[in-house]
């Protein structure tokens, strides 16, 4: 029923700790212009704009889509604002895709950003809540116990997280847009880095970044016209589950399983390990790679860490994960999910440069947010479904 939809343009900024040379508008404009150039389109060609970002308090601007309407060429057009926690970059791409899949629009610009240097994200995430003990210090404080639970459940050895961190930081050296570039990265360097939230070390953690990402999506006629390299949407969906529910498995969330099942179903994927060539998955803390390998069906329960340990997720491995360096290397929070979706598109289009995997035909983009209760995913392919 839904119309064929493709990614035809991708743009991103060089992610860094502080972009003091641009305003928020300048930051998003930079990514949007790059995406339009990649799509060989101009501002008037765009029917609608969708903007996503994580909490407005990160920059201190309430509903910044209002202020950014002019910078994003949205004046006189429909503009939508999405906010679904850390998964928002992915959700924003999905809302934009739905505008085309539904036949409402033909060409949509989706933009996501965070300028984290405007505030302190860790403490912005730790505001006191009524009736809740003030025990949290940022996302790491929330997720560390879940990682401990995974390690115990899967009987995983202590060093797996270090392997993920080294791998993603090595991948980042091939991506000029990645924030953290650590040329002499090594197992020993990660192991010696300070323990922040046991078992998460400093170098097993994502940075705070200023950055933006933009994607241009279109219907088939534009996608198939000369000079464009489309990445077709084969499957796309989102799933959410409650925060306060004793039946939740926060280590291996059902919403993640369900989201993957529906997206794989749409894309005709029955064996993700065999049928997906490369994956960009939201791994903000190293240990989430083995956890999501299992949650997304790439590994049997308890075996995710074995795949990581065997090197299967390296750029030259059986199923390369996060060849861009991932969230561990660049984390403009609101854009981090869209970067996963965009990197999946770059891989399918053969435009990932030094971190391109040979012969990619199918790629997964994944984002999650909140306390692992919000999920957004898409599977892209090199031929029209």
């Amino acid at each position, binding site marked *: *029923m*839904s119309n064929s939809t493709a990614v035809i343009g991708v743009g991103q900024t060089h992610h860094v700790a502080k972009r003091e040379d641009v*305003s*928020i508008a300048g930051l998003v404009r930079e990514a949007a212009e790059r995406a339009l150039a990649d799509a060989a389109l101009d501002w008037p060609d765009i029917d609608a704009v969708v903007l996503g970002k*994580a*909490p*407005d*308090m*990160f*920059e*201190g*601007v*309430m*509903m910044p*889509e*209002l*202020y*950014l*309407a*002019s910078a994003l060429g*949205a*004046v*006189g*057009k*429909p*503009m*939508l*604002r*999405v*906010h*679904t*926690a850390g998964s928002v970059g992915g*959700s924003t791409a*999905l*809302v934009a895709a*739905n505008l085309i*899949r*539904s036949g*409402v629009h033909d060409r949509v610009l989706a933009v996501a950003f965070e300028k984290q240097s405007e505030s302190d994200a860790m403490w*912005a*995430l730790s*505001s006191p809540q009524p009736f809740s003990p003030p025990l949290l210090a940022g996302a790491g404080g929330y997720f560390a116990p879940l990682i401990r639970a995974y390690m115990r459940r899967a009987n995983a050895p202590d060093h797996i997280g270090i392997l993920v961190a080294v791998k993603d930081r090595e991948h980042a050296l091939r991506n000029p847009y990645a924030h953290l570039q650590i040329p002499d990265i090594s197992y020993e360097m990660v192991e010696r880095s300070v323990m922040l939230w046991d078992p998460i070390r400093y170098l097993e953690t994502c940075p705070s970044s200023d950055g933006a990402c933009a994607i241009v999506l279109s219907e088939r006629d534009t996608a198939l016209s000369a000079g464009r390299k489309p990445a077709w949407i084969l499957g796309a*969906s*989102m*799933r*959410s*589950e*409650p*925060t*306060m*529910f004793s*039946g939740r498995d926060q280590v291996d*969330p*059902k*919403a993640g399983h*369900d*989201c993957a099942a529906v997206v794989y179903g749409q894309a005709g994927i029955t064996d993700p390990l065999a049928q997906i060539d490369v994956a960009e998955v939201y791994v903000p803390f190293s240990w989430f790679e083995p956890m999501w390998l299992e949650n997304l069906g790439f590994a049997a329960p308890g075996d995710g860490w074995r795949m990581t340990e065997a090197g299967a997720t390296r750029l030259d491995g059986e199923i390369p994960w996060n060849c861009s360096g991932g969230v561990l290397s660049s984390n403009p929070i609101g854009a981090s999910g869209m970067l996963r979706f965009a990197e999946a598109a770059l891989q399918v289009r053969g435009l990932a440069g030094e971190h391109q995997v040979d012969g990619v035909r199918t790629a997964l983009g994944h984002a999650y947010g*909140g306390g692992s*209760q*919000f999920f957004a995913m898409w599977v892209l392919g090199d031929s029209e479904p």
Partner: protein
Amino acid sequence: MIDVAVVAFAQTPMLRRAGQLNEVELVMPVVSQALSRAGLTIADIGFTCSGSSDYLAGVPFSFVGALDAVGAWPPIEESHVETDGAFALFEAWVRLQEGDIDTALVYAFGKSSSGPLRELLSLQLDPYVLGPLWPDSVSLAALQARSALDAGRFTEADMARVAARSRRDALGNPFAQIKRDDDPGVLLDEPYLVAPLRRHDCPPITDGAVAIVLASGAAASSASARPAFIRGIDHRIEPHELGARDLTVSVSTAEAARHAGVADGPVDVAELHAPFSHQELILRAALGLGADVVVNPSGGALAANPMMAAGLVRIGEAASRIWSGAASRVVAHATSGPCLQQNLVCVLEAGW
């Protein structure tokens, strides 16, 4: 396009202060009522979308907690807009156009009383040039009213008549917050709050929540005896910079109305999200509504203005006129941003 109808609507009593009620406690009753009125449970719903703003609650991710009001287990397909819930309804309408699902739940909430609202809304402004001057929301609306008065678009007496009519109509709305029967002439004797706006020209500060159920195809006819079908829905945004806009008109509303097909037939009733009295007059002109159109029989945002929910309430109120048989073609409108910067227009009709 697939025919999608508004089939159920529920709202909280609109209050100056909801006290210690949190988001879940505000949202849960209206979600339960709307689902029950449609004869559905959350398990039947294909897509859920909500609207709210973290800045009202003063915490990041305030919508995350609110999701607990829905009972999202097993996990649901769900999204959220950081603006008025009317835009969440648009997202749900788009999702329903894909045809693989036939129901959607939309809700919105705003506890506007939690902070100093007028100053808080200054944080919506461009953070480099305009925001640091801290013009508050009432002062910006006053600038707009002054521009329109100076341009001769209407008079202060016209504004007073809008305010008096809205609060008088609210006497018939059990959920409204401000209900009064005032003589417009007497209202003009009151002092200015921020000239040329008097207190009656401004909206109250309101806590409240709203939920709506959308359905298409057979699901629409089984959920409602007289579904209110969305015949057109569109939204447009204008520049944020006030100096780049003609504040005396609403070009984005006119453009959205054109795409939504407002002029394709007679309009019986219009529910307009006009927080300030003069904005109703600007919107009426932009929508091309004649003098015979009944505007805001609910009392509108001048009688209750729950931030991030008041626009979605307008769609529910407009649909209610169709369900009751009082109208067969209605227009609902929602706005976002200072001085009507962004506007959504929705045309609803009875029958298939």
